[in-house]
């Protein structure tokens, strides 16, 4: 039995805009999502902003009810059996919110230990263990309002683990962490994976998914656009290379012209200060450069480089844009 199943899950949000004349608008966050995550698997959910990653996680943690379709965790239905799911899963949503700021980190953990019905005489030990794990032991008695962003995130990680859940959901856990903090967090995730937990991780960082995940699902606009191991996804671009061109003042008409070229697979633009970085995927490699330059015509072109395609390029190709 898979640990997690999503079966044609659809989720629509009804939003209203306008103050005087209220207009109702439906936002489709998940169009029709089906996938399975095996027990003990570390599954990465990847996708651009607004793709529906958080929505998926919230459905699986019983915080949102799907508009249509069914989802289950450990065999329990997320709507009907929410009570069975809640004690068995742990979750963190990236960011600093969701803590009681005016009390200490330890108070926060002890409080949630009570809510998760951790055995009363084990609470102290468990909280200390977790404070050690996330490296907050010596700041544990200070108020959370004085914690740095990374410390708050680590506190969330400890909270998630209080009741030793079998399934973990981490929604962008490394967002806003410094490189060392992010690496430590990734190491912690690896240890949890090694300990046999089923883990769903959402991220914007390709290398993170590549390094950690057994399998990756890429979603875009509420649809699953690719599913496989990092190697399988890389194979999508195995024979490709990427030409990166620094340009100044690229317009839609240039992009359209590049995309129309028969040897070009995809074009992505990253806007930087005063210039843009074009990433063109092609099987031609260096030989594509003169022809690309030609079609950019009078546009000023700066640095040009050619390299082999990576998982990130596979991702760019799948979702059609850069983060």
């Amino acid at each position: 039995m898979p640990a997690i199943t999503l079966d044609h899950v659809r989720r629509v949000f009804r939003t209203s805009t306008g103050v005087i004349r209220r207009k109702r608008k439906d936002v489709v966050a998940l169009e029709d999502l089906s996938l399975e995550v095996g027990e003990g698997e570390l599954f990465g959910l990847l996708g651009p902003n607004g793709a529906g990653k958080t929505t998926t996680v919230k459905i699986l943690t019983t915080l949102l009810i799907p508009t249509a379709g069914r989802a289950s965790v450990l065999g329990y239905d997320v709507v009907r059996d929410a009570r069975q799911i809640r004690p068995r899963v742990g979750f963190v949503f990236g960011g600093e919110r969701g803590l009681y700021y005016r009390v200490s980190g330890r108070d926060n953990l002890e409080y949630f230990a009570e809510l998760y019905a951790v055995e009363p005489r084990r609470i102290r030990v468990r909280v200390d263990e977790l404070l050690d794990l996330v490296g907050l032991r010596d700041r544990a008695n200070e108020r959370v309002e004085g914690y740095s962003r990374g410390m708050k995130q680590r506190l969330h990680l400890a909270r998630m683990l209080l009741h030793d859940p079998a399934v973990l959901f981490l929604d962008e856990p490394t967002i806003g962490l410094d490189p060392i903090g992010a690496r430590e967090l990734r190491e912690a995730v690896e240890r949890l994976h090694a300990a046999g937990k089923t883990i769903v991780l959402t991220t914007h960082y390709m290398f993170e998914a590549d390094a950690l995940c057994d399998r990756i699902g890429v979603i875009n606009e509420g649809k699953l656009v690719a599913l496989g191991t990092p190697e399988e996804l890389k194979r999508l671009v195995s024979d490709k290379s990427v030409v990166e061109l620094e340009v100044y003042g690229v317009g839609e008409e240039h992009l359209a012209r590049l995309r129309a070229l028969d040897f070009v697979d995809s074009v992505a633009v990253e806007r930087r200060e005063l210039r843009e970085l074009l990433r063109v995927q092609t099987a031609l490699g260096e030989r594509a450069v003169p022809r690309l330059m030609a079609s950019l015509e009078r546009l000023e072109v700066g640095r040009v480089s050619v390299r082999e395609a990576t998982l990130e390029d596979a991702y760019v190709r799948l979702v059609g844009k850069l983060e």
Partner: protein
Amino acid sequence: MRRELRAFSASTRLWLRYMAVDRFMLFCAFVQPFFIAVTVMYMLHHQPQFDPVYVVVGSALTGIWSVVLFDGSWAINSERFQGTLELLVGAPSSLYAVIAGKLAGGMAFSVTSMALSYAVGAWLFGYSIVVRDVPAFAVAFVLALIAIGALGVLIAPLGILARSVRQFLTVLEHPIYILGGFLFPVLLLPGWLLPISYALPPYWAAVALHGTSSGELSGVAFAEVCAVLLLSSLACFVLAAPLFRLVLRRARVEGTLSLT
């Protein structure tokens, strides 16, 4: 049940601690009732039939009611603004128990602070605040707090049902002072208002506390008032359960547990 009791008491403790570390909150909690007590005592102390305990009980009731009404109608939304509501809902304990615990913490805090302010106020004016029937008053005190708190538990899910409901609740603050007979007897009100008073748990709380502190309420009449307080508490607690289920279900359908 044991799980819910743990969630209840943990929430009470968390909120007591939360309020105790907030200097502004401490200031409000102690200074405001203190000034009310001093003002009322100063205004009334020339009147021959002035009974300090009546004034203390009455203004304490107004204080408790304000706290319960405010805390009750904001209890869930404040968690939402802090981003903790999702964590509470995603935990196995019931939100009902958590919110009830939070309200209990708020009440315990404000009752303690009021008792201290009144003690100081009375000492300054040289009054002795005498409760005539101490055991009955103690019983009435506990039952009255439970009854008003139970109303708060009912208000909590109502507070997020709709903005209009919350606004209506806020408007209720002062009328209840009067309809509840906190500071003067409801018999001074037009007769047609009395049925409304009789339907309000705070009214019975006031009857019990004023009656036992003055010693006028005892025997069967006292037992009856206690029964009314218990029944109204029970009714609020029972009615709140489906309301909590309703608002939680709706929040999960509409996606309003968090702010985004």
